[in-house]
């Protein structure tokens, strides 16, 4: 009997986690690089994100080649020469929303802490995120800065002036209940 308790306990725990997932299938991630030479902007409207409301865990996954640029050739350069999306097709984020209260209506600002992986490099990030709950639907949005250098992305010296050292990243995810 004593041995059954923990198994039962685990079962309960995992059973509880099965439900209450929400997913965003058309999340938007955009990034900007502003320099005096050139402004580069790219947008990805097919970013996936999922939140497990039972334990506040969040995951984000995006395909690098789904970023749309102002110029078609920039997209090719981005995938082929910078992020090498043949080798590293995805960027992912995995983390936890700190002090998240799923029940609270309206707006709340929380820190999301986790690991962001891109171009084969994983970084610990803490992102200030605005969480809105409108009519039972959750919307997450925010901005953070990423350093090109951190992700082992090589910029040729000739183009160093065209690409900013810090890239500002915008995101917005609208969630729906997830049915597996």
């Amino acid at each position, binding site marked *: 009997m004593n041995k059954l308790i*923990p198994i039962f*306990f*685990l079962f309960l*725990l*995992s059973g509880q*986690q099965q439900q209450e*997932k929400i*997913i965003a*299938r058309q999340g938007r991630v955009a990034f900007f690089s502003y320099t005096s030479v050139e402004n580069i*902007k790219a*947008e990805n409207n*097919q970013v*996936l*994100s*999922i939140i*497990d409301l039972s*334990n506040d*865990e*969040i*995951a*984000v*996954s995006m*395909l690098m*080649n*789904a970023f*749309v*640029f*102002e*110029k*078609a*050739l920039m*997209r*090719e*350069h981005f*995938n*082929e*020469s*910078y992020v*090498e999306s*043949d*080798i590293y*097709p*995805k960027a*992912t984020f*995995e983390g936890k929303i700190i002090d998240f209260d799923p029940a609270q209506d309206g707006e709340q600002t929380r820190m999301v802490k986790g690991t962001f992986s891109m171009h084969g490099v994983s970084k610990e990030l803490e992102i200030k995120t605005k969480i809105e709950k409108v009519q039972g639907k959750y919307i997450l949005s925010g901005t953070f800065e990423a350093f090109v250098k951190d992700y082992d992305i*090589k910029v*040729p010296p*000739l*183009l160093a002036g*065209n690409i900013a050292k810090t890239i500002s990243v915008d995101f917005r995810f609208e969630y729906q209940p*997830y049915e*597996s």
Partner: protein
Amino acid sequence: MKAKELLLYLFLACGTNSMFAQDLLGILDEEQQAIPQYAEASFKFSRIAIGHSIETRKKGILDIFVANRFWNTPADRTQSFVADRLSTRIALEYGISDRFMMGFGGTTWDGLFDGFLKYKLIRQQKGNKGSPFTVTLFQNASYFSEAVSNPAVEDDLSDRLSFTSQLLIAKKLSPNFSLQISPTFIRRGMSYSEADPQNHFAIGFGGRYKLGGHVSFVSEYYYTTNPIESFDTYGPFALGVNWEIGDVMLQFMLTNAVNMVEDAFIAQTRNNFNFRNPNLNFGFNATYIIHFKRGLKNK
């Protein structure tokens, strides 16, 4: 004992927690499967070195393409600066849709004016699904504008036109390495000798190896199965380096082909590839790319 057990449960619970975090990304992975992924940029440019690659320009992109060949005459001493001879082809090439492009150009040395259409028929997909190759159809027509001094040679409009049809088949074998095979049919207009066939079959081989993010090494060779009989011809061969910097693309190459239009260099290259003048040509192509279509709706 109790405390230890409790710790164990806690540990296990934590374990399952992290397992579920994995699962979240796992769920997203499953969601992503549905989108087909195509192999992009098997080659960076619409040419490998001398011949066409499977790549077409994306919609709304105009290439201002200037190709040059420099070579020396066999004379021991000349008074030319750097190179004795120069041929330039200036062309405008435009992407009508993401898979269809056209271009027009003129060459100074051989007086050929040419136009081409290129359509990407099948796209290589990543993974095991879909087509393992990219297939592009290519058709060009060229007009020979030079005067013909021999009155025995017919030089009506129909004689001055040549046509090249190509089936370009390529595979991006790895992120760095792409190979292409190009079966070619050439209908040559001008007939200088009865012995020469006017229809030629040829096959081209080309490859690209990426040396770095922006630099790749390319090579290309064409073999003609039924070459011209009245003078010696050789298969055009090229070794080159392609370098792209933003909106500019530069190609440097060594080749034995003087001409830059398909029917001319595939079937009518008179030099072999070696270092004796005038056989070796230094080629320099520069392309400036202008985007007429903006990708993002709201700036």
